[in-house]
């Protein structure tokens, strides 16, 4: 048995498996882009895959041939002819790669410049992204909205992102919409994204940032422009009316225990250290990672570090009933 048999086998298996898993929900796949940026990037990926596969096949073809044809056999008493080299052959395998790389280099450079150009125009949406250990804040300066963990964008619109961090390095990555850009202390980076279709796109922090780096998730929620408009209206004029005793009790507890860090638009809660909780009930996730269910809200409040080790959110001294009350209050933030 020779090595490349195995390679062939592995390649086939891998391709098969790829096909199989294609049926699954793959909402973080680079190979399934949902916007122009990721599409441009995928086209470079595919171009390089084609060129490189060609080189691989040629090299492995030669290896296969050589291993079969020139294996040592019985009765070979004379050593083989000692060849120093061959200028023509060596020139060939210098020049052909140069040409192939040039073919790859041209779109690489043009795409790099295309992605670097900041989109302008009246219908461009500006968003300030601020990352902290281990959550994301999204501020819409033109709309006066601040939210966290879930970035709402209208479909078919270019969104300009201004990226900053409050502590360590992070990296903003939504595989189906765009490759990543780092958020670095002391710098402001920019990138742009656009979603061509509505949907929820999983985002990840892609630069190691501490104990909970692996769960520093966020979502990009792309909606058609009318729904987006409706969302912005709700965020500008949120309904903060606790319904029921538990929620009223929750509001008091929130004021005592949570408001120093969290703010909610339309209330007196103006804490700026933690995520803004305006419209919390509409969120898909709690803390960016858990499904937004009543149980998960309580789980998160009762011991945040169990979900996100190293989080700045402390374990608040509340009993189970009080936590339920706070959860009830949060459920009413629409």
């Amino acid at each position, binding site marked *: 048995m020779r*090595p490349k048999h195995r390679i062939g086998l592995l390649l086939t298996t891998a391709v098969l498996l790829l096909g199989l898993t294609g049926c699954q929900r793959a909402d973080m796949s680079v190979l399934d882009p949902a916007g122009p940026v990721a599409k441009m990037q995928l086209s470079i990926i595919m171009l390089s895959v084609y060129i*490189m596969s060609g080189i*691989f096949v040629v090299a492995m073809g030669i290896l296969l041939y050589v291993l079969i044809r020139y294996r040592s056999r019985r009765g070979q008493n004379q050593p*083989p002819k000692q060849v120093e080299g061959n200028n023509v052959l060596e020139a060939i395998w210098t020049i052909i790669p140069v040409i192939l790389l040039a073919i790859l*280099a041209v779109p690489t450079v043009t795409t790099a410049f295309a992605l670097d150009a900041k989109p302008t125009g009246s219908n461009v949406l500006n968003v300030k992204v601020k990352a902290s250990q281990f959550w994301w804040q999204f501020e819409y300066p033109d709309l006066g909205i601040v939210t966290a963990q879930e970035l709402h964008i209208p479909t078919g619109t270019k969104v300009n992102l201004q990226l900053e961090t409050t502590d360590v*390095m992070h990296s903003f990555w939504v595989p189906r919409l765009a490759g990543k850009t780092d958020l670095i202390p002391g710098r402001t980076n920019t990138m742009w994204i656009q979603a061509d279709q509505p949907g929820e796109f999983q985002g990840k922090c892609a630069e190691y940032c501490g104990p909970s780096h692996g769960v520093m998730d966020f979502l990009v929620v792309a909606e058609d422009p009318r729904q987006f408009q409706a969302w912005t209206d709700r965020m500008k004029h949120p309904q903060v009316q606790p319904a029921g005793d538990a929620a009223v009790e929750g509001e008091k507890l929130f004021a005592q225990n949570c408001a120093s860090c969290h703010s909610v638009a339309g209330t007196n809660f103006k804490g700026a250290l933690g995520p803004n909780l305006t419209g919390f009930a509409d969120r898909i996730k709690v803390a960016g990672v858990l499904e937004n269910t009543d149980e998960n809200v309580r789980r998160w409040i009762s011991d945040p570090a169990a979900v996100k080790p190293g989080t700045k959110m402390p374990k608040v001294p509340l009993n189970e009933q009080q936590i339920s009350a706070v959860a009830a209050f949060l459920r009413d933030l629409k």
Partner: protein
Amino acid sequence: MAKPLEEVLSHPVHTATAPRKRFWLLDYLSTVDHKKIGLMYALIGVFYLIVGGIEALLMRVQLFSPNNHFVSYPLFNQLFTMHGTNMIFFAAMPLIFGLMNLVVPLQIGARDVAFPFMNAVSLWFTFVGALLVNISWFFGDAPSAGWFAYAPIGLNQFNPGHGMDFFIVGLQIAGFGSLMGAINFIATILNMRAPGMTLLRMPLFTWTSLVASGLILFAFPPLTVGLFLYMFDRLFGGHFFDAAMGGNPVLWSHLFWIFGHPEVYIVALPAFGVISEVVATFSRKRIFGYTSMVFATVLIGFIGFMVWVHHMFTVGFGAMADSIFAIATMLIGIPTGIKVFNWLFTMWGGQIRFKTPMMFALGFLPTFVLGGITGVMLSAAPADYQYHGSYFVVAHFHYVLIGGVVFGFFAGLYYWFPKVTGRLMHEGLGHLNFWFMFIGFHLTFFPMHFAGLYGMPRRVPTYNAGVGLEIWNQLSTIGAFVMAVSIVLFAMNVAYAFIRGEKAGNDPWDARTLEWTLPSPVPEYNFAQTPLVRGLDPLWMAKEEGKTTVTPAEPPGPIHMPSNSYLPMVMAVGLFIAGLAAIYHRLFFIVLGLEVIALAMFYHSLNDDEGYHVLPEERALAKGEGA
């Protein structure tokens, strides 16, 4: 009053003969013999390969399924930090220095390295550096900022424990060791070649060792500076990387990758050298395109210094920087491609024998080519915005570092093992070792390409369920254990060789270069008479003329040998004390440790030990020496 020049030069030849035999352990602790030092380097390398491997296995168990809690998140971070650090600095580096020490002087017909004493110092610095980083576990606080230790996550504000200090001080010490080793090998290779061995007659392993040493020489100082700045920031209130005080965290990233990228070639180039030797020997053919191989090696070395920014494509330097460094990176593909095709055409027309070293070389080829082509894919900056920091990158560099370096080193270990020990390893076990490693490797790392493309970032202790990541991770975990079995098989094979291994003889592989003219194991003075080199592959040339060995260039005479010394170990102990004291801010012990080093250096400088001579009569008495 000046002595006349003649008198100065006709310095009386020392007649002192070899000192009495020491107990073997004491002999090794005080040795300045490049072969014993090489063996100890290789042992350090294999030891940390196993330590790093265990760390990898723990991570793979954790990642077997989503939302697993086999290890905690902070522990996982320590595991990947230590895995990377151990594998690069304390497995790969000692392995290359081990092979270089064992082989390079023999290949160039030298009796020793240029600075035998400093060689021992390098070894012991590497040893205590590795020890210092790894004992952090026992001080309850292993480093957790990644082997790249990006600022500011490694600064006090975010990493208040001592783990990072162990990392910084340990790497600094090991780095000094590597730097001295590199200088030693450059001087050795340039100054101590046998008569007639011109630069373009040097074996390719020696060439790659020379270029790798040059890379260490220029790549480690930026790391040294970076680590010093880090130390100032953490221990003495500096503001190099702290953005709040005007510092710049990207500065560290730059300094780290100026070192970090050439580091890949530092460990990869000698592996390429091994492959060149093994492929030529087991095809019974001269290496194809020797001169272009040499130029490709030098070119890779130089371009290797001009591409580090591709590790920082997502930092936001803009399209201009990204384009320049993307193209520079692609350029490296060209000399690398030349090498691959030269290897293929060395085999073309040869008589290929599938011995274990050749199996590893053949396993190297497809694996390394895959790693190379994903490397070119990564160099396309806009595509890299997607790959960067994802499992695709993890797959890529393990293809280069395991597929290229580890396979290369195993080829080298199996190839030169008989020369070092005088015993052959078992072929059947060797093949089994190869197949387990080859299959386990691809099973572990091929799926990681897909995990990356499916959106899995690196350095995460857990991943999202239901987005198509489970299968890739499960395959990887299974593969990792298959690889672990291959290491056990290797250990068994070494044990077998020592217990019942066949005697190797001078030239078990029908090889081509000078080291195979020597007895196995090699006597302490290597060459009784310095050989005369008349071309590439001197032994093969001799064989073509019907001779069994290479003509000597000198009559038999007394051979000068350096004396053993415990000072290198003492100096390393001093540095260990000073390092540990610096971590815990104990000024008294810092001074004490540094004083130990200073006194050792002072003593060594004044002592002026001129070594001893082995006389021809003594050699004749030694076994295996056809007097």
